[in-house]
């Protein structure tokens, strides 16, 4: 899954999509995930990083991760939009 390349991120969790003009707010862990996705990290890299850094386990994070990624797709922040889901 690839995020749109031109997404603008701020340190406070503000996400701006210049192609649509939509803006979003995300929490610190959400921001971290978006940054890693932008860097081209895959789901496994992200899971390893988060479970090492935060008090959570693989199963719990995996569930939350896929929900988060679905929301990114729903908000049209993914290259290719909804099609990318498949």
């Amino acid at each position, binding site marked *: 899954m690839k995020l749109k390349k031109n997404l603008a991120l701020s340190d406070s*969790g503000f996400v701006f999509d210049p192609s649509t003009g939509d803006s979003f707010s*995300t929490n610190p862990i959400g921001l971290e995930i978006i940054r890693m996705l932008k860097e081209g990290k895959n789901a496994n890299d992200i899971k390893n990083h988060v479970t090492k850094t935060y008090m959570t386990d693989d199963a719990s*994070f995996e569930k939350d991760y896929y*929900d988060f990624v679905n*929301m990114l797709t729903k908000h049209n922040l993914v290259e290719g939009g909804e099609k990318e889901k498949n």
Partner: protein
Amino acid sequence: MSAKKLQYERPVIQKLNVGLMNKFGTRTEYTPLTHIDGNSVKDLLGKFGSPLFVISERTLRRTFREANRSFKTRYPKVQFAWSYKTNYMNAVCNAFHQEGSWAEVVSGFEYQKALNNGVPGNKIIFNGPDKTEAELKVAIANNSMIHIDHLDELYLIKEIAVESNKKPRVAIRVNMDTGVYPMWDRFGFNYENGQAWDAINKIMLNDKMELVGLHSHIGTFMLTPSAYGMAASKLSHLALEIKKKYKKNIQYIDMGGGFASKNTLKGSYLQGIDASPTFDQFAESICTAILNAGFTETDLPLLILETGRALIDESGYLLGTVVSNKRLSDGRRATILDFGVNILFTSFWYDHKISPAQEFSQYTEDAVLYGPLCMNIDVIRENITLPPLKRDDHVVVHSVGAYNMTQWMQFIALRPAIVMIDMEGNSHIIRKRETLDSIEKDEIVPKYLKDFKL
């Protein structure tokens, strides 16, 4: 040595919408409530299980004293009578009795409860449309105040009075137009069409009963104090006319209950805390109407109040736990909690305030809160903004003290325990968590249905 791991919060992203803010700004419902009267929510749930009802005795007594002060500073003779149907946990009833409340009951079962709690018979008000002959006999023998709802009851009381050679102390319930909709005319006798006078004449012209009071109960969750003023004026007028016609002083005027609590009704534009009148406003309206009605100082009737909801709602909390999170087809977050409409009956009427019980960052999500029942109607909040809750997180529902612990259903799941936190902050279990045995102990399976082969 590994570094200490950071607190985990579920990742969330929310679209920012411009121009949709309401004029009161964002809601702050997600401020965590971690302790109730010094007791940690987590510890309470650990000790007594989840879900759990908690009653703060401190809030209960403080609210009662506030209401009592509002009326007693405006009127010389005031008496509260605790409305058993609102919450008849014996510990709750007794806390109100300790504060000086009489008992107001609406069934034989509640009447027995009041007696068992030690309320003297002559301090029990017996209301309601269905009082059996046996129940009436007990109430008459105990010299209780019986509030007559319909003529059949009036005739039955008269018959019992003749048989028992006792003079029952009765009042009539009067319904009336107070300018609010809906008008409650199903209980008692109507003021405007003369039914009330008809009932009064029937009692006064027969010396088998003593008419001691006049009672009204104009509605529920009333947001208009002036309606009570109107009702108090009409009852005062009846009392004064009775004095004129029969030279008989009415001992008390009972204004019933119905004062709104601080909960927010579904569909209400304003939050309950802003929309609900204060005790002072209700007291001002009622006391002024009676004081201005034309009674002499010595003839002023006792003012009885059967306030239930407004006295107990804020003392009650429901503590629960997140079972799961899921995403609905339209993208909304759905959170499943371990309590549903089976024990939180009032969620059919209110948008209950619900707080997380642990600290969160400032990020929030719009969510639907579902109960655990396998029933589509089990919705606790259709729309709420909460921090990203995860499985096993705790939540606290506020202001659940009224009606939930009496209207709850043993449906699908067993009912939880109820704990009261006393004035010193100690927790006491006042109703045990139900077990399968508490449900099945009254069931009887016929012998021929005991065995089967599968």
